[in-house]
């Protein structure tokens, strides 16, 4: 993709007889253009985040208007020693993100490679790939809820045809999380496919040809030519998908409801924090969980971008 380096040429605005305010507007266009959008986002982030940070140091609960007392780092101590809800939620968030991402990247890469070279009917495959991606996540959750229903769902019928007994799927204490991971993989693998396909299409053919002439096998060409060239795109895909997977909420709420099910089977950090805030009104504790969650996201992003810079060196 073409990148244009911007060199500013100082130039007075328009014709010499323009009124003063027009000239002022033109001279200050850099910030006049950028400021409204930045102010909008900053106003919605900075103050709320600072407030969440403050709430995390108080015992606020019940109503946000109620009196609350400053308790210092007590919430952090309580949350970080909470092995009943917090640490299992961290574990589920990590499992969900890592496993879903792994499947999405491997499957996404495989499908993207299959679609790389043009063939008849490719257009229709691309359309099919787009459909899960744009479907409303809550509706997708409901759709799979019917398919995975232990009694009337299609999934158990299909298993029945091949002689496998019915599974509890979303209803099972241990199968619920893997099932939601499956749903996430179904909906978001196409995202990875599209990004990697864009990356593959932008690669030049020459290194491939050179490797072919040198007698490299298909696997060798993928491993030593395509994959290294595709690494920057792959990192973008992992970064985008990873952030969204960490924050998954819609399909978990749609399939298991509040608290991630009656045994908190799919309660990730996001679902836990939502429940604390809006089902139990434990604002102090929920803010603590959210600050820690935010730190985890920043940490994960930092680790990934550091790897990316290293790869570029």
């Amino acid at each position, binding site marked *: 993709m073409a990148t244009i380096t911007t060199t500013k040429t100082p*130039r007075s605005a328009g014709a010499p007889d323009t009124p003063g305010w027009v000239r002022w507007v033109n001279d200050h266009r850099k910030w006049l253009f950028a400021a409204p959008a930045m102010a909008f*986002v900053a106003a919605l982030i900075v103050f*709320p985040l600072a407030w969440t940070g403050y709430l995390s140091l108080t015992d606020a609960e019940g109503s946000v208007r109620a009196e609350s007392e400053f308790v210092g780092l007590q919430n952090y101590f309580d949350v970080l020693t909470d092995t009943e809800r917090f640490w299992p939620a961290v574990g589920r968030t990590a499992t969900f993100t890592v496993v879903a991402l792994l499947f999405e990247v491997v499957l996404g890469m495989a499908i993207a490679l299959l679609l790389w070279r043009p063939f008849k009917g490719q257009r229709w495959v691309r359309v099919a*790939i787009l459909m899960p991606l*744009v479907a409303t996540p809550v509706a997708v959750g*409901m*759709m799979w809820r019917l398919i995975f229903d232990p009694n009337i769902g299609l999934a158990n019928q299909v298993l029945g045809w091949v002689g496998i007994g019915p599974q509890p799927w979303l209803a099972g204490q241990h199968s619920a999380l893997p099932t939601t991971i499956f749903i996430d993989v179904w909906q978001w693998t196409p995202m990875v496919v599209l990004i990697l396909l864009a990356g593959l299409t932008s690669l030049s053919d020459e290194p491939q040809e050179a490797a072919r002439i040198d007698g490299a096998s298909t696997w060798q060409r993928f491993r030593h030519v395509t994959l290294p060239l595709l690494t920057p795109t792959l990192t973008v895909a992992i970064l985008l998908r990873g952030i969204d997977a960490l924050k998954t909420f819609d399909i978990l709420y749609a399939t298991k409801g509040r608290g991630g099910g009656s045994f908190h089977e799919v309660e990730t950090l996001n679902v836990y924090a939502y429940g604390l805030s809006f089902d139990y009104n434990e604002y102090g504790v929920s*803010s603590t969980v959210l600050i820690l969650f935010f730190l985890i996201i920043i940490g994960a992003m930092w680790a990934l971008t550091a790897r990316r810079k290293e790869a570029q060196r």
Partner: protein
Amino acid sequence: MKPRPAYRVFRVVALTFVVLSLLAPLLWMIAASFKTNVDIYDPGKALSFSPTMGNYAKVLQQANYVEFIVNSLWVAFAATVASLILGLPAAYSMSRFNMKKSALVVLMARVIPGVSLLVPWYYVFSNLKMVGGFGVLIISHMFVSLPLVVYIMMGYFDSLPEELEEAGLVDGLTHIGAFRRVILPLSVPGIATSGILSFIFSWNNFMFALVLSDADTKTLPVAIFDFVGYASIDWGGLMAASTVVTLPIMLIALFVQKYVVSGLTAGATKG
């Protein structure tokens, strides 16, 4: 170079499997939306059933879905237009003046978990008597769509050579005039891309509306839950409701496939 025949066969088989696994669940949902609840419970009626419009009648008449469709359309449309008005000039400035740090401020909105902002938002907006109104929903959805517009359009403006504005300046336009009359008309494909994506993301958004809407301003993703009772689920109604939410957006994507794909993959190949 033609691929080997064995690979071609493998490709057909593998991609058929992929397409089937992606589309079959969606078709199953749509099929179920035309079945009575009795037929949904009967495995023998999986494919051979006499279609009924009863679920849709229930969704559109009893469950007031026409109102929620209008709500969803209005919120998504307003959030998209407002995001374009704020986002286009910002993306232009950030692209031309290479304002990487400022762009990062806007893109932060993509990273922060929405829940961490919702308690303060709820407090502030309820003090302003805005919770349950459309204003707060539009603002919260803009929080999703504005960064999208800025991100996509920055890449788009980067690809437009600066000589274009310079030619405009020579012709006596001001900088603002060059942006309005030269750059914006050339950016229609980019604006379409970011506008469509912003609409889709707003339409699909669930969490903000779950907290900030009330019975009258509910958007479709929240209204779906009307069909999930504590004791039992009205599967037919639920699938019809899910289809009503999803099908329009899938049809849009079908017709403007090119724009949706270029928006979703924007910036991915720059490294």
